[in-house]
């Protein structure tokens, strides 16, 4: 394995989360570690005639109370979630946008589908009421860069900004990209994350036809079952996760509390299929080995993995095999998707925030809804189930895999 230049450690100084498990980091982490029961899963009337009529939904967020009239007018729900999570992360970092040098603050937010609900609504308007009734704001509201742009405007972040769209690896790639931007001295502070909200009849209808989502309509709360023999697909969730990363000297210079360090990043593509991962798992393994090399961390130093773990047969078996081949039996592996749903472009960021919290608190959340592990999983794979497990660790990994063959991995270490 070739080693790159000396590892670069980006300090994580702030976290923000808005998920179906809770609004805010404290509420979400409490649910994810404390209950081992799923987050909020709701049936939606507009999906009633579809094989899947349920999604993980954020409750308890009053966007109208926290965003101004212009923000509400020009954002769909996915961008609002990003703004709320970013505000929490920046406040957690002890940063004040009123006084920071905004030209040195970058924003990188991952997203897959953009404002599909508004797009869906406007398409219906065009078909039923004619082209003249279509809103002129379709582009700014639905574009995948809307969360990044909205966060910049809200916080006065005037440095480089971009949306990352690498399917369900987007959130992880966003954090990895921020790590690279800090290493390149393109900014002093990077606000990195992911946001998604796709309560769209069009989207769910297609996912049903793809046979990718669970159709366990009789029991939506246990429908998402990562690594379980009884799984039948993922369950879509909405949410946002945002991390504040800083150049270490910048964090030190202002006396910020460092919650964890992002030390290595790797990405790859299977170059294989539109939706399925390559069955040999070489792509995700490559991303993981690249991240380990970037971090100068040996596989046996990794104490915990927050896996992609969607609860689809293809993902679970390929990912589990790659993790076990690369890292052996030591790490405590979990998938938190049964708590949040699969939040697509937000997933990697939300789960990286969970990885930071796991390192900080030396506590690995359980894989909710896992009752009967798939017998085809590697026998030594240590999946945490039933309850959160106290775990002594200095190093943890986040992996993500997406449609289109996208893979990404991050290596984080304890502060």
């Amino acid at each position, binding site marked *: 394995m070739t080693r790159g230049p000396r590892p670069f450690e980006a300090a994580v100084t702030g976290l923000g989360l808005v998920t179906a498990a809770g609004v805010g980091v404290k509420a979400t982490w409490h649910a994810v570690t404390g209950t081992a029961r799923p987050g909020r899963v709701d049936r939606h009337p507009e999906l009633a005639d579809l094989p899947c009529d349920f999604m993980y939904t954020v409750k308890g967020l009053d966007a109208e109370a926290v965003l101004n009239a212009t923000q509400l*007018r020009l954002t769909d729900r996915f961008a609002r979630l990003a703004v709320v999570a970013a505000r929490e992360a920046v406040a957690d970092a002890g940063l004040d946008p009123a006084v920071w040098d905004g030209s040195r603050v970058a924003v990188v937010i991952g997203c897959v589908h953009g404002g599909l609900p508004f797009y869906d609504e406007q398409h219906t308007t065009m078909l039923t009421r004619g082209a003249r009734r279509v809103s*002129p704001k379709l582009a700014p509201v639905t574009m995948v860069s809307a969360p990044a742009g909205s966060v910049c405007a809200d916080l006065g972040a005037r440095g480089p900004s971009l949306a990352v769209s690498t399917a369900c690896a987007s959130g992880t790639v966003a954090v990895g990209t921020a790590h690279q931007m800090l290493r390149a001295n393109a900014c002093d502070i990077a606000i990195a994350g992911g946001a998604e909200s796709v309560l769209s009849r069009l989207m769910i209808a297609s996912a049903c036809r793809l046979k990718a989502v669970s159709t366990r309509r009789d029991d939506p709360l246990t429908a998402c079952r990562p690594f379980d023999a009884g799984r039948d697909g993922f369950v879509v969730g909405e949410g946002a996760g945002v991390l504040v990363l800083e150049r270490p000297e910048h964090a030190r210079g202002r006396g910020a509390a460092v919650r964890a360090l992002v030390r290595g990043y790797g990405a790859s593509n299977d170059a294989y299929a539109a939706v399925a991962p390559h069955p040999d798992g070489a792509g995700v393994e490559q991303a993981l080995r690249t991240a380990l090399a970037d971090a100068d961390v040996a596989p046996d130093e990794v104490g915990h993995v927050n896996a992609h773990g969607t609860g689809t047969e293809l993902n679970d078996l390929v990912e589990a095999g790659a993790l076990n081949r690369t890292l052996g039996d030591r790490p405590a592996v979990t998938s938190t998707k049964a708590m949040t749903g699969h939040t697509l472009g937000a997933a990697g960021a939300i789960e990286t925030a969970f990885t930071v919290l796991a390192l900080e608190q030396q506590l690995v959340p359980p894989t909710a809804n896992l009752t009967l592990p798939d017998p085809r999983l590697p026998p030594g794979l240590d999946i945490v189930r039933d309850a959160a497990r106290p775990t002594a660790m200095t190093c943890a990994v986040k992996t993500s895999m997406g449609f289109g063959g996208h893979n990404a991995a991050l290596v984080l270490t304890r502060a």
Partner: protein
Amino acid sequence: MSTAEVVSSLLAQRFGVAASELADETPLYRLRLDSLALEELRVMLEDTLDVDLDDIVLTSRDTVGRLMAAVEHEAAA
């Protein structure tokens, strides 16, 4: 509801512009009504009033008075 009242109501409900801000001489940009907002308002007014407002040419440098007069003129046509 008069045409002016429809405009005021939409500005309040959809654009967060208070009635007290609607002085005739106030430029629209002062009310945060940029080019996109004016196009949104055009679609909303056409829908609400069932009129064609395509002939109205306004920029955010125009005033509230000019907006009201233009809409009333087209609505009455």
